[in-house]
């Protein structure tokens, strides 16, 4: 692996795992004649392969590798990523609560219950992560 490819080592590994997971799912889908699982598996595998190909292409051009490193460590982009995550959590919790109420009023109680469990899990995960970070920093 050349020095340029080492920059993408973790990403390539992550997407290689995705490809393996995708292939496994699609095999399972073929075996059980489940088109849904098969489709998800193929989708994951294709995305994984395309991303790996993208990183291999970028790694051949030192200028593109330099730009990639800068973009990945950019001050402002890291700040934007954090803010986007915070806003996303807020929006999905609010949307989830609206959906819980909506489905509940529409008589679809099972759907309402599942969404409320997801919203609760999100809130618990956020609280747990916040607690850990508060003690770490």
């Amino acid at each position, binding site marked *: 692996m050349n020095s340029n490819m080492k920059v993408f080592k973790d990403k390539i590994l992550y997407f290689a795992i995705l490809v393996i997971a995708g292939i496994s799912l699609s095999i399972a889908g073929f075996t059980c004649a489940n088109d849904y699982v098969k489709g998800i598996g193929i989708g994951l595998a294709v995305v994984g392969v395309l991303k790996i190909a993208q990183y291999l292409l970028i790694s051949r051009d030192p200028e593109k590798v330099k730009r990639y490193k*800068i*973009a990945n*460590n*950019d*001050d*402002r*982009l890291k*700040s934007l990523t954090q803010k986007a995550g915070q806003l996303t959590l807020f929006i999905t919790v609010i949307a989830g609560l609206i959906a819980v109420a909506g489905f509940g009023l529409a008589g679809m109680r099972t759907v309402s219950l599942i969404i409320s469990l997801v919203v609760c899990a999100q809130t618990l995960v956020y609280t747990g992560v916040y607690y850990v970070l508060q003690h770490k920093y």
Partner: protein
Amino acid sequence: MKNHIAELRKNEGLTQQQLADAVAVTRQTIISLENGRYTASLPLAFKLSAFFCRPIEELFEMDDE
């Protein structure tokens, strides 16, 4: 927070891309800094200070609130 990045950059005869390359950020970050839409982190503030050879207080100033 106000800053004098644009002024200092122009005095040095640098483009935004050249300054971005010098402090290892994207050009968009320099644009946002100069427009006052983004406040630099402490590490970036120190990099800019070292690059321009000026104390941080000469690059950045707090808004009067």
